[in-house]
């Protein structure tokens, strides 16, 4: 019962106009927005709603489900080109009004916020307390808390610092049956009940819409710096990066950057290794010395120390498809992420750059990012399929994090070699939480495709 179920529900609710009427009535006055502001994959919703409270989100979802309408939650609009193409799009659910801090006790180093709050606003709020949520997903400040969790795109610090799921202490989710379900809590250590919040992380709304989240915070580092090492060729850069991985450093980032990616992010057209440092000044000084020593033994000519986060921001923007339309339409740039053994990163990076991608790898997470402007469906499909094959052959996987809808229709954005058993569990879960596929129908093609389920 997916698309078909939704059709039956809609028929039961009367005409589409009736269903929309029911939906509008479910929320107070003044929640409607201009639907033209919410295009996704070249489509415009019939209605756009901006609920002010989590209860309104739940009420809206329930009304939409009753009417067989498809809802696409959004706030920062940075993750709308993820997952499979939407099968239906009736309602834009704008969560930006949910941007409150519910609780922040600085001395506990925890915070509870609503899902529509942007990461930039959150960072501004924490800075006076010398605290941070140490996550830097592609898109950075513009990403909303809910979008960051639902899309779960790791940033450049991942592996050396915890991931979003590790810092998430609990969450409240609005379900399509109108319920608000909470899991976890607000304390830093908690094993009571099933950790549903971890399951919503990266689920693209498959099991409900995140409306509130609690996080563990960390102190801001005393100092930060970036060492940019320009190499002569990729094998040299790979050797340096792997040596640095085994060198004690106050590092929070270690990236191997291909020549194209280096050029695109303003470093210059040569393979680079960049090291992000964070900690006490003395630890940074020592780390810079260590990096320079490693460069010398690897015959790497240049190692420049830059202030703070410089060098990383450009890569972060590149990974987000900066400056482009990223609503999943034809102009959306391709961003793919490979998960690979460290030993295979450089070889796949090289192939990616040869195929026209700008590519770089984060060694601590074993992840490879490859970005390219769209080049038409056939070409895109070919080069992404090639990279996926390489990743899988090396024992890894490849996800399309962002791209034109046509590409995401042609290739399953998330699947590696399909495991039917795991899919069954996920499909069963999706059915128990969202039987009519009200939220983001199609984002998980293998969970939502009626053909997969043997339905007509």
């Amino acid at each position: 019962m997916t698309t078909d179920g939704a059709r039956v529900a809609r028929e039961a609710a009367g005409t589409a106009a009736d269903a929309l009427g029911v939906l509008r009535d479910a929320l107070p006055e003044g929640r409607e927005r201009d639907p033209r502001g919410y295009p996704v994959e070249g489509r415009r919703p019939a209605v756009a709603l901006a609920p002010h409270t989590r209860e309104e989100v739940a009420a809206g979802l329930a009304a939409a489900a009753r009417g067989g309408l498809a809802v696409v939650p959004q706030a920062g609009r940075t993750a709308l080109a993820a997952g499979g193409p939407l099968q239906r799009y009736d309602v834009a659910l704008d969560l930006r009004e949910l941007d409150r801090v519910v609780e922040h006790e600085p001395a506990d180093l925890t915070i509870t916020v609503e899902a529509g709050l942007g990461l930039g606003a959150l960072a501004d709020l924490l800075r006076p307390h010398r605290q941070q949520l140490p996550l830097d997903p592609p898109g950075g400040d513009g990403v909303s808390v809910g979008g960051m969790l639902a899309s779960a795109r790791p940033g450049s610090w991942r592996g050396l610092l915890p991931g979003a799921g590790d810092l998430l202490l609990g969450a409240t989710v609005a379900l399509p049956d109108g319920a608000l379900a909470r899991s976890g809590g607000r304390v830093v250590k908690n094993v009571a009940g099933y950790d549903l919040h971890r399951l919503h992380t990266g689920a693209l709304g498959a099991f409900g819409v995140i409306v509130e989240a609690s996080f563990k915070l960390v102190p801001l580092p005393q100092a930060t710096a970036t060492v940019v090492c320009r190499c002569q060729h990729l094998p040299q850069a790979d050797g340096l990066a792997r040596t640095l991985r085994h060198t004690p450093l106050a590092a929070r980032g270690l990236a191997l950057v291909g020549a194209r990616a280096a050029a695109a992010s303003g470093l210059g057209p040569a393979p680079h290794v960049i090291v992000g440092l964070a900690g006490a000044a003395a630890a940074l000084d020592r780390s810079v010395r260590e990096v320079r020593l490693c460069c010398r033994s690897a015959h790497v000519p240049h190692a420049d120390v830059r202030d703070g986060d410089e060098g990383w921001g450009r890569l972060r923007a590149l990974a987000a498809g900066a400056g482009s339309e990223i609503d999943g339409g034809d102009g959306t740039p391709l961003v793919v992420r490979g998960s690979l053994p460290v030993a295979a990163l450089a070889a796949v990076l090289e192939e990616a750059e040869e195929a026209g991608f700008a590519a770089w790898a984060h060694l601590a997470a074993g992840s490879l990012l490859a970005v390219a402007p769209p080049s038409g469906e056939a070409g895109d499909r070919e080069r992404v399929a090639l990279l996926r094959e390489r990743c899988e052959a090396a024992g890894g996987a490849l996800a399309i994090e962002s791209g034109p809808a046509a590409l995401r229709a042609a290739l399953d954005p998330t699947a590696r070699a399909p495991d039917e058993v795991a899919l069954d569990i996920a499909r069963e879960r999706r059915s128990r939480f969202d039987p009519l596929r009200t939220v983001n129908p199609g984002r998980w093609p293998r969970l939502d495709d009626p053909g997969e389920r043997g339905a007509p």
Partner: protein
Amino acid sequence: MHVNAPTAALAEAASPGNEPSNPLRTDPALRAALARELRAIVDIPNVIDAPEELLVYEYDATIERARPDLVVLPASTDEAAATLAACARVGVPVVPRGSGTGFAGGALPVAGGVVVATARMTRIRELDAEERIAVVEPGVINLALQQAAARHGLRYAPDPSSQRICTIGGNVGTNAGGPHTLAHGSTVNHVLAVEFVLPDGRVTWLGGRQLDAPGVDLRALVVGSEGTLGLVTAICVRLLPLPEAVRTMLAVFDTVEGASGAVSAIVERGVIPVALEMLDAETIRAVESQARLGYPLDAGAVLLAEVEGLAEQVEEDAATVLAALTESGARTVRSADEEAERERLWEGRKAGIGALGAISPNFYLLDGVVPRTKLPAVMREVMALSEAYGFRCANIFHAGDGNLHPNIMFDELEPGSSSRVLELGGEILRLCVEAGGSITGEHGVGLEKRSYIEWIFDPPDLDAMTRVRDAFGGSGRFNPCKVLPVSHGCAQGHAAEAGQAALRLARAPGVYL
């Protein structure tokens, strides 16, 4: 320490008509047939059905006992999968079991059925030092993995104090923590993937060999599910490089409040140590009576703080911690860098629970969490409550995480003491909840806290959790009557309500926690 008679309440839970469906209890022929089938899978000696041998599997680190009908010890994933498929065909409860060190009754087969013990699945299948991952079977002892990793300059971060005997599979079941959770997080943060057998016997890997594998993250759900969703037959964990430098500091305070204040003072200065552990006066005296470590007997609390990282960072952080300790009124502070000397500072912390076991006939070890800032107030109330109930209470806990472990000392031979201790335990956990905390930080809900869970979750929350559990297809047959409250729990409705009320006390002395 164990009591030999099942409690009245558990006996009631196990009485006919009040238990989750278990055809083995009513049909001896079926039990014999299943035993025969299982023996064909795992070989004759690895199916246990003799009453005197089943005794060993009746308990965990709680005092409660519950008799399984059969125990199976598979040696491989294939054997485990075939075992589960056989159990599914008959529709019997299945209870996974590691070393049986749990404090929440998680491994107790309260509805009988088949206990699947992982004691023969002890291989480290792979340890790749370059990729910094290991693939281990669930019966691997936590310390064995630590030692294997250390040979490559690596470590597995979760280090529960029971690490000498607890298994990685059990750690995955409860999402175990340990003293170093403060900086490194719990088990879930270090498990990349699990090989998982569904209740029907199908096998799959959840997760991948790198962080953040694409796809729906079912791995994170299985970690901490206390064996209620299926059986984990292998775990791919990530290993971290050993730090260049470590410094351990031991500070003596006049009062628990003073030491709690120091915890906040350290954090406020922008340093998160990798461990911040506290022992109170009662524990200090117990430790000193067992092993002379030189703790002053009139001390109110001892605080252990550890920092690690690059040598320069450690120097800086240690200076900050030291200043915070001194300004918070520490009477003395001892510091150590060398491993042997650091071990000595940790000794009291590690010997604490065992020492308490030696000075009291029984004790009930609680596990609750409060926000760090509420620590002094809640500790005060814990002590006042214990006094009001007339019990001595010793505290030895993860102060940095706000993870309390009050140990209530009692003598179960004293009439009525067991139920009063349970009542006190409930009140203490209620305090934690009212302070904005949780009923368990690392031991799990198990049988012990399945009704307390309603204090922190509302019906829609629990309903969502039930939906998740049921999506795995076990429909309550897998480790029945655990985690979720009675109303959401046992397949047969209100069975074993008693189980949780009965779960009591008196933990084995030893190295746990």
